[in-house]
């Protein structure tokens, strides 16, 4: 896979009849963003494989005069690529998709703002109402949380449950899941800020995930609880054992101080400030 910035060949592409230089092999959505061409999207994340589920980034690929609607996150840049991002057809379908999102996640401010930006301020569809929705009526099932948890963190604490219009995301059997490391990557990656979690005392509670609770490490120096234990263990295994013992419980600030002291001692006195 070609990675931008890795001296890939520059090629010429056409977006909305204007020509641009772009790196061969790059995902077109990223190219477009870099050139300030606005394409709405919800399910794309650089660190993950393109998923193509939100359907908002659909653009027209022009080949031999014919157009084909394709998600921008799945198109790879190549020489002569021609794209139209704002044809009446694209706008029409995109607007209807926004209406569907407004009905599916009626509580999401992000969706409301995004839709409004494209001129869609209300929906003709019946709004979904879920009582005590752990995702606050904001989830649009883009799957980023599930994918981050599985593909990046390697935990798979949550997954899609049921199928079709009944699909939801949660822990198995809707109960506390020990597989959760409490990293909260899911909450960070969520485009609609639907996932609720909170640090309470020495634990982190993933409210959205059936109140899954993980223990936090408390810093012996300052007494602050700062990171999930399991996550710390995972990070620390990558360091030399002697060092781990010394720093394993320190919070990031105290750890920084420790390393600073250590580094200072390494430097010969003569090199220090005169």
């Amino acid at each position, binding site marked *: 896979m070609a990675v931008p910035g890795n001296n890939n060949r520059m090629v010429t592409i056409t977006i909305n009849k204007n020509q641009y230089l772009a790196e061969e092999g790059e995902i077109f959505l990223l190219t477009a963003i870099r050139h300030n061409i606005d394409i709405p999207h919800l399910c794309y994340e650089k660190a993950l494989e393109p998923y193509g*589920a939100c*359907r908002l980034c659909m653009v027209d690929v022009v080949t031999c005069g014919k157009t084909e609607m394709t998600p921008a996150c799945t198109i790879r840049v190549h020489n002569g690529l021609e794209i139209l991002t704002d044809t009446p057809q694209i706008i029409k379908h995109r607007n*209807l998709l926004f209406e569907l999102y407004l009905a599916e996640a009626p509580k999401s401010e992000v969706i409301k703002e995004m839709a409004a930006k494209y001129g869609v301020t209300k929906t*003709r569809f019946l709004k979904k109402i879920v009582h005590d929705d752990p995702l606050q009526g904001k989830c649009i099932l883009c*799957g980023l949380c599930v994918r981050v948890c599985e593909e990046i963190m390697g935990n798979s604490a949550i997954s*899609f449950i049921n*199928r*079709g219009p*009944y*699909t939801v995301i949660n822990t198995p059997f809707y109960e506390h899941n020990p597989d959760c490391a409490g990293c909260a990557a899911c909450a960070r990656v969520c485009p609609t800020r639907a996932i609720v979690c909170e640090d309470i005392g020495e634990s982190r509670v993933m409210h959205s995930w059936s109140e899954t609770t993980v223990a936090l490490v408390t810093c012996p120096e300052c007494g602050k609880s700062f990171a999930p234990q399991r996550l710390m263990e995972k990070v620390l295994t990558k360091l030399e054992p002697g060092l781990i013992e010394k720093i394993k419980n320190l919070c990031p600030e105290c750890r920084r101080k420790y390393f600073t002291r250590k580094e200072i001692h390494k430097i010969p006195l003569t090199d220090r400030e005169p």
Partner: protein
Amino acid sequence: MIIRSQADLESIRKRGLTKIQPNHPRIGIGVSSCGIAVGGMALYHRMQEIIQNNSHDILVVKSGCIGYCKEEPLVSVYIPGKSQILLHKVSIDDAERIISLACKGDIPQDLALCRIPDWDHITGNLVYGDGFESVPDYGEIPFFSHQKKVILRDCGLINPEDIDEYIGIGGYFAAFKALTSIPPDTIIEEVKKSGLRGRGGAGFPAGLKWEITKKAPGSEKFIVCNADEGDPGAYMNRNEMESDPHMLLEGMLIGAYGMDVHEGLIYIRAEYPLAIKRLTLALDQARAYGLLGKNILNSGFDFDIQIATGAGAFVCGESTALVASIEGKTGRPRLRPPRLTEKGVFGRPTDLNNVETWCNVPVIIGKGAAWYSAIGTKGNTGTKVFSLVGKVDNVGMVEVPLGTSLQTIIYDIGNGGALGKGVKAVQTGGPSGGCIPQRLFDTPVDFENLNKVGTMMGSGGLVVMDEDTNMVDIARYFINFASSESCGKCVPCREGLKHMLLILNRIIAGKGTQNDIKLLQELSDTVQKTSLCGLGQTAPNPVLTTLKYFIEEYDQLITPEGR
């Protein structure tokens, strides 16, 4: 016994023939799933009991289904030297009479449907003999006379649980010829020349797909048979597997050899337990003869087939979802490219073909591409099996050359509406297809012409609707189906279909407005254009075609206030 030479195969063929045409009477009972449900299996056991108790010199065997479902249970009676007779609507009370007459070289005339003096199995021709002239000839029965049996060549005539009978009528001879004397690339060339197109619905040229798979980098590849026949109203594949499982295995063996692939999979839906049972048995029998496994037919070629079972999800008929399901994941389709031929089962290049596509292969190789492509029309060669069901008089399994008109299928073969009612429309292609009104019945059934009228071939279900059928209810039925079977990955399919269903419910409840019809149209368009996979992209077809051809039925449901 392991088959190593032509002589080995010939000796089994002879043995098989003596099972089909023994020198004493042979009675075959149609016991595919539907035959069993109307008493076929009970009849089989009863007959076995009678012949054992009386030590009659009569062979009673299971057979598959010849397709005339309306007349089931069907029983075939062969008296040595005479025409084979098909008996219809046989009840368990007839068992004794059939046997005692057979002992005397006779048949119950009142139960006789037709006689078969000889039969072209394509892989071989069987002459039964004359006699029973008062019984109509097979060719005189309208249900049969307009059909051309290529895929269903053996169905209902041989015992699907006995490989010897399949070899007896010339089965596995095409595989033998292929593996021992045809270079693999020539096999692919021949399939390309035959014009065979995928019978799962999309109609992609099979030979081309084979070639792409073969050229894909990597040495470990898969061939997969898609037996996840999910379209409601379609049961061709079930019948093909239940009635003639070796035809599928032979097709896969030839294909594997052509593509140089050594692992085969049959992905079959959980709803077909009998097909699973018969395929499992067929695989064991094929292995015992060395037709699967190492060094098949002493050719040096290794190949085996495994069965993977589905667990009830229509979307798993979609190729990438099917692969996910085999891998033990939820059947959520992924983006294409990469295509399966590049990245399929466990990331390895995979060729996926429908049951019926594979079933065509032995005859293409056995009789040649020229013979095959003479059937059907240019660009749509060969035959297609349809399940003719719903409100049609002659319900059953029908095989016709591609290009045959709906008129011929529904009226000449199907004898029009059931109970003398007028036919209003026919629904093809399952939830992905559309409803074609009676005035368009001169449409030739092929991939392109069905697309032109807004529907598609699909796997081959033809559901006939009569004057009592409400077309808006049919549209709602299909949207409900598609919505319940949506995987839920992309928003147009997950949410769009749900709202289409809500709107249709509103219209049917008499609370709809003209705006609802407009919104339905708008949603259909967006779901079709923006869905991720074929399920969503085609799901609006039943709505779009009913809006196009039966708009008055929608209008009738809109109250004056709604206009």
